């Protein structure tokens, strides 16, 4: 059987030739993302700003009557509300700010909206699919713990890499992760997809995933640094990237297949989650090659970085080999 080969053997792309341009692009996109977040803001879900979200499915129609619904809800005079489609075209979510931390008031608001919808839209087969209400206090806590988990994860991972490799590798990985997270934030600011607790999970997964790539390349860099002591750093990084290219493409492609399945036919509730991860797949791949590697060069990683680890026994063995 002739096997499929996506990446030909012995590729020799000079990836790092474009490192200055790539770094410029990376920095620009990080800045653009941060600006986007600052200007457009994130479409924070009830998890992080508090409020309530009511999910409605209209069983008997193909498309949810969003405009009508908006008018009807505004007529209830319950303050600002956002109505959005999610998942199927006949599913919408209605989001509102909480009237306050007063439980009775919140319940009353929920009841007024849900009873209005089930009554007025009975002909369209309206069905209340879920209610999420989160008080201001809890949402603040969720936001803090979410931010904490992101920051701690990045630091913990960087420290781990520092121990397993060298400090320069830890720093490079940290920058690559920062890049991935920033771009994902920018993506959410741009698309205004709802940013909720699930997205924090997606971000952490992106971090883990991007790191997979980074570590595979780093591992090869370390191996090659020991093998080719005289090669200049740029060529060595290019070589390592090329050697792992087949794996990078294969893994990314299989992940992409799995994620696309979830994205296209999976439940609408996790659309944002899978969209974030699909984006992270590309961003993580890019940052491993074009963020992590150049930083290694600039931090002065070279064959000497790993010299102290060569033991006497290794030297003896090396001499023996030379003799052969």
């Amino acid at each position: 059987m002739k096997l499929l080969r996506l990446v030909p053997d012995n590729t020799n792309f000079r990836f790092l030739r474009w490192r200055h341009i790539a770094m410029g692009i990376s920095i620009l996109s990080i800045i653009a993302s941060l600006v986007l977040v600052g200007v457009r803001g994130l479409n924070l879900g009830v998890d992080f700003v508090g409020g309530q979200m009511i999910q409605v499915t209209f069983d008997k129609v193909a498309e949810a009557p969003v405009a009508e619904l908006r008018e009807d809800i505004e007529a209830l005079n319950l303050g600002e509300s956002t109505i959005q489609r999610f998942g199927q075209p006949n599913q919408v979510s209605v989001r509102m700010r909480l009237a306050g931390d007063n439980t009775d008031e919140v319940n009353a608001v929920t009841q007024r909206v849900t009873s209005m919808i089930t009554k007025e839209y009975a002909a369209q087969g309206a069905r209340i699919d879920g209610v999420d209400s989160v008080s201001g206090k809890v949402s603040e806590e969720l936001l803090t713990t979410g931010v904490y988990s992101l920051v701690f994860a990045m630091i913990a991972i960087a420290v781990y890499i520092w121990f397993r490799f060298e400090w320069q590798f830890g720093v490079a990985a940290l920058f690559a992760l920062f890049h991935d997270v920033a771009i994902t934030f920018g993506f959410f600011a741009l698309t205004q997809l709802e940013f909720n607790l699930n997205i924090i999970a997606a971000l952490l997964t992106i971090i883990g995933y991007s790191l997979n790539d980074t570590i595979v390349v780093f591992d090869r860099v370390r191996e090659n640094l020991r093998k080719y002591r005289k090669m200049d750093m740029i060529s060595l990084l290019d070589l390592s990237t090329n050697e792992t290219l087949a794996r990078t493409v294969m893994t990314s492609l299989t992940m992409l297949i799995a994620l696309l399945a979830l994205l296209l036919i999976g439940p609408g509730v996790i659309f944002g989650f899978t969209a974030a991860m699909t984006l992270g797949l590309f961003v993580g791949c890019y940052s491993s090659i074009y963020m992590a590697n150049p930083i290694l060069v600039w931090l002065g990683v070279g064959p000497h970085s790993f010299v102290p680890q060569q033991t006497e026994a290794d030297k003896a063995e090396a001499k023996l080999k030379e003799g052969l």
Partner: protein
Amino acid sequence: MLDFPRWKTISISLILAFGVLMAIPSLLPAGAAKYYPSFLPQETINLGLDLSGGSHILLEGDPRDVAAQRLQNMEETVRAAMRSAKPRIGIGDISREGGKLSFLVRDVSQVDAARELILPLTSGAGLTGQRDWDIEVRDTSRIVLTPTEAGLTQALDQAMETATEVVRKRIDEMGTREPTIIRQGDNRIVVQVPGLDDPQALKDLLGQTAELEFKLVDQTASPEDIAAGRAPVGSEIVPYPTNPAGGTPIAVRRLGGIRGDKLTNAQASFDPQTNEPVVSITFDRDGGARFARLTQENVNKPFAIILDGEVLSAPNINEPILGGSAQISGSFTTESANQLAIALRSGALPVELKVVEERSVGPDLGAESIQLGLIAGAVGTIAVLVFMVLTYGRFGVYADIALVLNILLILGVMALMNATLTLPGIAGFVLTIGAAVDANVLINERIREERKNGRRIIQAIEVGYTEASRAIFDANITNVIAAVLLFLFGSGPVRGFAVVLMIGIVTSVWTAVYVTRMFVALWLKRDRPRELNI
């Protein structure tokens, strides 16, 4: 590579067999469960509320509420103690300002006696030997009781403990199946009820403190005073929304009433005369005696039935009620009467609970999510399986077998731990499949590379496995770090995701590295291939 010891083959097979066996109960369709032999493991994976439908409600008690209640109780206890002291100790100018109880002892010579009487009313709190109240004498005749930090903490803890019990009783009374009720942190309770049709009823029930009081109506208060919110001395003004006289509040005597915690039973029923829904209550012995005395002493006067600070009704006492049972009326519907009966039976909440977070998922959406999630997961997995075989041939088949075993293993471990599968958890599955595939890709690419560099078959495979394992290990440790942090900081569905990820990473690496290696070793030993098509 050729000498793959037999004990390794056997132990790997045993672990796999165990994992698959554990996974079976979760995979059986609901109807088939009864044909499943009972000597085999029965544990199944729980479905998260986002898949099964149901409600997650986070309740919070206010520590200030507990402190205020405690202060009020202390005042009543102190008053009673001073009154029943021999000789009686006269006190006055009682205030609860600033969270402290302070009062004047009228006769300076009795200050020490009063102090002696109060001391046993306080008790030790915490581990430091601190007491729950500090007692001070100021300006020779004023006694000030200040609650200590330890005392407040202890009171809050007890209140939440009791509240959790009450919540459990109430939910059990509702007849819901498999509720989860857990205390969380200092002052919170998590309630999870799967497959609930009407979360509103549950919230109403839990939101009700159900503190029932019977107090005499103060008839000396003029309507003008009440309207201005001025209560006569010793009375307080309580709202009365269903007052026949236009919903105006009324004044009631603060002391000398009865609390509804002295009940043995409460039932919803109908008033035989008006046919209105009412709640019949039965007092315990002590409560019954006090109720009899209250009604005997106040015939032809109105008394107020107060629930959670609102008057339900204020009937006239036509004759003494001696039987120890009574009927509460107050514009109930059948439902609200039933709810109040449940709440009274399970006892009053020692602290008012607020719903600070609610997540309800309708059963239809849950079913839809699980269906779409499974389809998407299956499509993704099959596509990946096919892709692997196309790319790596025989090695792809091995990787695929390992992948399927891995999925079963994850299910098995989850069932063993009674873990919960949530919607993000299904996505987590897809990711671990990604991790497993990545491990195999790393190994196979390395073998290809080593072959290309001219190594012999067995050597190439050997080097491929050892060299790739290092990167696989490092890469997955970092994933575990992310998953652990997710688990620690996440909540609800996100935690479900982290659980799948943690279990999945371990089993993925194990199946991808060891199990495929076993297959390859057995193949090499049997066929001794001369060519390696990879």
